[in-house]
């Protein structure tokens, strides 16, 4: 914010050598559950100096979010409570405060931003109203002064036309914009401490870069101390001064960022860092692939695929706009090959998966195993579709929670009338062993497994019909890095063994580089660049591809970028009026099958 209002302005300029802003000693948090009390944070001590960025990193269940909530005194009541330790903010012990006093501290001296900006903003109030309300609640400013301050705050987070934005509602803004509004709201009161709990996890990579840079700049200007909670070691390397690694509620290691990355002391830290997918570490399997040379019949061919959704609106609910989700996409996948589709949210990559799996109507041609789906009757189509199976992003949401996992894996066999009952259970048992589960786990229900194990169940299910193509739609995105690495290894192993082809859909360039043979980059429903992995990563031609690769945070503090690729405007939407069709991109070969959209 510019100079003017603000009671702590002088404090912001204070030297960094002053005592810690936040001092946590011996903090333990317990949660009452089915089987009694369970400690989710144990004996955690940390200090936060003025103007410092402290990253708390760890995998799910490590207690990092509980720590944040404990500081805010917002632990879920009545199940969780602080069982030991103290939290001091400056000279105040937060545990001594009652509810009313704590409310004054929240927002004013400690602010928090959450992972999902859509759910943390009130959908029925304009952002202006929400911003001014939080300012008015904590200061004695008049309404018009508060409004002025809100506009300043929006300008500070680089939102254009701040004044007219005040009237907008959360749903009218993109995810990145919403997160910026959250940051504006958090920083409008110039708190001493900002807690950011996975602030960029729900955002696209290019937007993530921007938001992180914004946080860093604002912190520098105001001298705010930041606790950044994340699972992403790339973000840690990019942002942190100091790092705390947590696991199972305990601090495993603490140190300066450079030290942690260069000389990790704890085994767990080493494991965690080793599991982080890095661009440039992809193994050179391209060679062996090329050696096979002979072009076998493609498993799947997609030609000029279009998927459009009609939007109804107006008084009579007529179709007045249309989402051009996929606009003329063509590609083919050979047996034993992995084609990755990358792009940011809304680019149509998941829609392609759904069209291939028969979940959405499409126009164009989808040819699977030499048979064009559009010319077939229902039963024939069902038979052909057997060869295409899908693994979804969220392994919990994609398994019926009321069925035993053994039955779930056997279900495809049952539906297609394969094998007798005994044979089925033998096959399922074999599949379980193959994906790294044990056969006695067949009797369990999905909720009794961890995320990685559940995804293994989904893989076993997809494999049950021995498909020729498996579509993996963001299948490892929801998993912790160490689990992610193991699941990726499993997928590769299975490919070698069964010769199955993958259509691997992801937003994560590092993961894509790790697993794919060929890569197609999508933007607004069309492919802008397609080629082998080496072509694409060593010689990206399209500016969008370059920006995607550059935006990935690198898990190496030495390679910290001073500036992220800045997005000039919001990503345009693929919704258009009836009759308008987006301009078709023409792909031209720049050598060796490397296709790039013309005009770049």
């Amino acid at each position, binding site marked *: 914010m510019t100079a003017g209002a603000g009671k702590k302005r002088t404090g912001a300029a204070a030297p960094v050598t002053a005592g810690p802003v936040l001092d946590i000693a011996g903090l333990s948090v317990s949660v009452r559950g*089915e089987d009694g009390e369970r400690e989710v944070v144990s004996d955690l001590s940390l200090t936060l100096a003025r103007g410092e960025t402290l990253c708390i990193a760890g995998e799910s269940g490590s207690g990092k979010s509980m720590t944040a909530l404990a500081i805010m005194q917002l632990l879920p009541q009545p199940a969780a409570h602080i069982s030991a330790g103290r939290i001091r903010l400056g000279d105040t012990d937060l545990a001594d405060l009652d509810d009313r006093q704590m409310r004054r501290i929240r927002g004013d001296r400690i602010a928090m931003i959450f992972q999902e900006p859509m759910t943390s903003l009130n959908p029925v109030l304009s952002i202006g109203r929400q911003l001014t309300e939080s300012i008015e609640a904590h200061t004695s400013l008049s309404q018009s002064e508060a409004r002025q301050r809100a506009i300043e705050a929006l300008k500070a987070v680089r939102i254009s036309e701040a004044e007219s934005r005040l009237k907008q509602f959360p749903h009218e803004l993109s995810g990145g914009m919403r997160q910026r509004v959250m940051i504006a709201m958090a920083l409008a009161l110039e708190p001493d401490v900002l807690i950011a709990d996975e602030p960029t996890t729900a955002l696209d990579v290019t937007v993530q870069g921007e938001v992180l840079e914004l946080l860093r700049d604002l912190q520098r200007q105001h001298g705010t101390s930041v606790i950044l909670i994340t699972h992403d070691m790339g973000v840690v390397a990019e942002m942190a001064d100091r790092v705390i690694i947590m696991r199972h509620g305990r601090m495993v290691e603490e140190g300066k960022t450079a030290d942690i990355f260069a000389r990790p002391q704890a085994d767990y830290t080493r494991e965690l860092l080793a599991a982080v997918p890095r661009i440039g570490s992809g193994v050179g399997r391209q060679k062996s692939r090329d050696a096979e040379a002979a072009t076998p019949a493609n498993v799947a061919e997609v030609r000029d695929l279009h998927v459009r959704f009609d939007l109804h609106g107006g008084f009579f609910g007529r179709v007045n706009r249309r989402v051009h989700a996929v606009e003329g996409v063509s590609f083919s996948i050979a047996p034993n090959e992995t084609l990755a589709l990358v792009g940011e949210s809304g680019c149509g990559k998941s829609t392609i998966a*759904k069209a291939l*799996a*028969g*979940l959405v109507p499409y126009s164009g041609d989808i040819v699977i195993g030499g048979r064009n789906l559009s010319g077939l009757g229902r039963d024939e189509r*069902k038979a052909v*579709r*057997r060869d*295409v*199976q*899908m693994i*979804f992003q*969220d392994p919990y*949401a*994609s*398994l*019926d*929670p*009321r*069925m*035993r996992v053994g039955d779930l894996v056997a*279900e*495809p066999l049952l*539906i*297609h009338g394969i094998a007798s009952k005994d044979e089925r259970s033998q096959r399922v048992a074999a599949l379980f062993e*193959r*994906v*790294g*589960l*044990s056969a*006695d*786990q067949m*009797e*369990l*229900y999905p*909720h*009794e*497994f*961890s995320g*990685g*194990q559940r995804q*293994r169940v*989904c893989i076993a*299910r997809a494999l049950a*019909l021995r498909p020729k193509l498996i579509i993996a739609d963001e299948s490892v995105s929801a998993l912790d890095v160490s*689990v992610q690495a*193991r699941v990726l*290894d*499993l997928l590769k*192993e299975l490919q*070698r*063994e069964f010769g199955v082809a993958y259509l691997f859909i992801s937003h994560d360039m590092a993961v894509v580089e790790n697993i794919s043979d060929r890569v197609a980059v999508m933007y607004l429903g069309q492919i802008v660049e397609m080629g082998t992995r080496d072509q694409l990563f060593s010689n990206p031609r399209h500016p969008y591809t370059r920006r995607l690769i550059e935006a990935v945070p690198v898990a190496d503090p030495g390679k910290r970028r001073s500036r992220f690729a800045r997005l000039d405007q919001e990503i345009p939407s693929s919704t258009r009026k009836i009759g308008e069709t987006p301009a078709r991109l023409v792909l031209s070969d720049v050598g060796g099958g490397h296709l790039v959209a013309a005009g770049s």
Partner: protein
Amino acid sequence: MTSPIAPDLTAPGRMPVKPRAGVWRRLVRRRLALLGLVIVTIVVAGAVLAPWLTGYDPNEQMFDGLTIEGSPLPPDAKFWLGTDLLGRDLLTRILYGARTSLIIGIVANGVALLIGTLVGVVAGYFRGWIGSALMRFTDLMMAFPALLLAICLAAVFEPSLWIVAMVIALVNWVQTARVIYTETSSLAEREFIDAERTIGASAPRILFRHILPHLLPTIIVWGTLGISTTVLLEATLSFLGIGVQPPTASWGNIIFENQTYFQAAPWLVFFPGAAILALALAFNLIGDALRDILDPTQRGRA
């Protein structure tokens, strides 16, 4: 070629699974469910064994059943629950009335639940014109006064207990359909339903194997709520002369006959009312327990 894959041992699910005890045994193990079962058993036994449990005729007006002034008797040693306005033994009437009320509360309500669930599930899953047609019809039924419809239907057919049951079933499915519709359409959007489609599951399979089990809690709640509603609806119909014909007793018409004397003879409303409440509560307790038992994610919780 098949190199062993490192098993995922991060959190090895609960490994030893005890063989699933039967639903019945797990039901009986819950104290509240057992209480529900006991109440239902008592009501059913009372209905069936009524002639042996009481020495009175349910429709007999007894001379000593009224005071000199002609008002009903409060509960005493001879008439355990007192007598009604016409000097009939209330306990006997409640026992015989249970026959009617059980048929209405279970059969009529059950049929209504069945129709409602079917309409709701089909409309919610298929959407399109089938869904629209079904739901507009449901809305129409909702807007139409249920009582008027019941009177029309009852006028066409000869009044009898079974006709009343049918009429109630045809009137009462609407709310269930509406609720089930909403829930089905949100379930149909869930990812595991998409996952079922990708493995080639047919619509009936998805509907009955994957959607219906998730609707169980709602169906149970509406089923138990429906018991008291339908028992009282039967009373209304009887009161209007299109239900069970007097002097045949039903819990609803006992309340209806006597409600104007509520202040002078509160027992006449209290006992049949308590009977309806107990029956609905009993089914609710059983339903609650069944819901938990049939939901695998609740396993192991008290």
